[in-house]
């Protein structure tokens, strides 16, 4: 078993140049012939935040200076999850030409997609830093301390999510149509832009808010960057547990469907 795992990761390591090339290609193709290019990665969430902050600060009577970074951090972290489960659907399907020619591990393609989402997240984080320079510069220092542990948890969550999405979508073509609806529903019951106080009116919703793994995943970034403190141990615990459960699920799906998935392409 250990030998097999070693051989598997050894093969991935051997293909590291190809994986990195696919990551660069993906990012380049996304912004090809665009004037602003990669800058859209942080301009887009920044503008979306401004729109949402103005609307929601008016509706919920929130202080825009503190509410805007709350929304922005929510959008950035949500983007990794959303991309993994939605765009990740195409991680295997869109690489079928390579799959038909070479016997490389399929996880190479899911790994590449999650690396793209991670790089995109890191570039997009510039928008949060820009905002914090004006409203909470100390948060940048705290954030710098806790960013790496957050990434260590985000990355396996993203890879596992992409793996689940990629295999499921290759077999069941309804998945890419269905998953945006599920993600949209999750968005509304998670504190991406709703604050804790907004959940307190309903005890069931509040309980869900407290134990929702997405709340904990969001806190890994929000606590240091916005509130100048370390994330709670419970946030780490639930996030790691979520990553492990997702990882086991992804392993099971990849193991069960294994090579058979080529017949669905």
């Amino acid at each position, binding site marked *: 078993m250990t030998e097999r795992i070693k051989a598997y990761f050894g093969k991935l390591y051997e293909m590291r140049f190809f994986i990195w090339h696919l990551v660069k*290609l993906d990012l380049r193709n996304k912004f090809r012939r665009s004037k602003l290019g990669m800058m859209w990665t942080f301009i887009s969430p920044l503008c979306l935040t401004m729109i949402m902050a103005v609307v929601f600060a008016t509706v919920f009577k929130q202080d825009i200076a503190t509410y805007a970074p709350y929304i922005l951090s929510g959008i950035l972290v949500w983007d990794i999850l959303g991309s993994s489960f939605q765009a990740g659907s195409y991680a295997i399907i869109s690489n079928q030409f390579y799959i038909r020619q*070479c016997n490389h591990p399929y996880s190479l393609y899911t790994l590449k997609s999650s690396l793209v989402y991670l790089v995109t997240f890191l570039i997009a984080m510039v928008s949060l830093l820009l905002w914090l320079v004006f409203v909470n510069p100390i948060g940048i220092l705290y954030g710098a301390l806790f960013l790496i542990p957050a990434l260590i948890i985000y990355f396996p969550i993203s890879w596992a999510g992409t793996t689940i999405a990629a295999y499921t979508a290759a077999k069941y073509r309804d998945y890419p149509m269905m998953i945006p609806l599920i993600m949209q529903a999750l968005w509304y019951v998670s504190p991406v832009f709703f604050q804790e106080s907004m959940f307190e009116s309903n005890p069931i919703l509040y309980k869900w808010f407290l134990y929702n793994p997405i709340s904990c995943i969001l806190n890994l970034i929000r606590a240091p960057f916005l509130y100048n403190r370390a994330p709670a141990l419970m946030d780490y615990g639930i996030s790691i547990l979520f990553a492990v459960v997702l990882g086991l699920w992804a392993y099971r799906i990849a193991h069960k469907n294994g*090579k058979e998935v080529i017949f669905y392409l």
Partner: protein
Amino acid sequence: MGKKDAHIYLDHVNMSYPSNIYNARTLKQELFARMKLEKPKPLLRDVHALKDFTLHAEEGERIGVIGHNGSGKSTLLKTIAGIYPVVSGTVDVQGKIHSLFDIGLGFDPEATGRDNILYRGLLLGSKPDEIAEKTQEIVDFAGLGDFIDYPLKSYSSGMMVRLAFSVSTSLTGEVLLLDEVLSTGDISFMGKARQRMLHVIDEAKLMVFVTHDLASMVEVCNRAIMLDHGQIVFDGDPKEAVEFYKERMLGGTN
């Protein structure tokens, strides 16, 4: 311990294309069939592409694979390459595989010819510095001139083929798997492409060559197998294989 000789051992291999994929029905078809508004689609069976297939190939062998369309030749190559899974039996391949099939697929039309050389090299497992060393030779061989720095979408299909062929044959491997790629391109390119292919074949320790070009098969192979419905019906000398093939095809025995 010395390095093992290259070999391909296929023992009692069964490989099928699962029918559940072709038989999948949409919700509309399902409902209409139940309501008897639509005749249900007849169910297809699994396509049993390789049947209890055993083949042992040792280093030094150049095996030509012939047979009618659908006899399982390409499936055999992809099974040896590990691309298709087997239902039962064992596949044991020793040596670095260099597969040359579907070589025109997977190029990036937005990237330049030069970039695509890098991408293809990486896909085939080379390192960037190894590809950098070979790039000029590939560019010269493909003979694309200044077009090499243009996006691929500006290429004609012939130019695409030349580039694909030049990159794919610039690398070598121990176990060479070929599907009909012996010469390609226009008349000016065909001659040198053939020479280059013969060089790649020479470099390989073991080759399996699927083809309908019987003359080429006799020229480059020292063993031939003929497939029929996923089974070997002839295994021996290439010239005799051609006779057997012609007799069987013209005789109408299928």
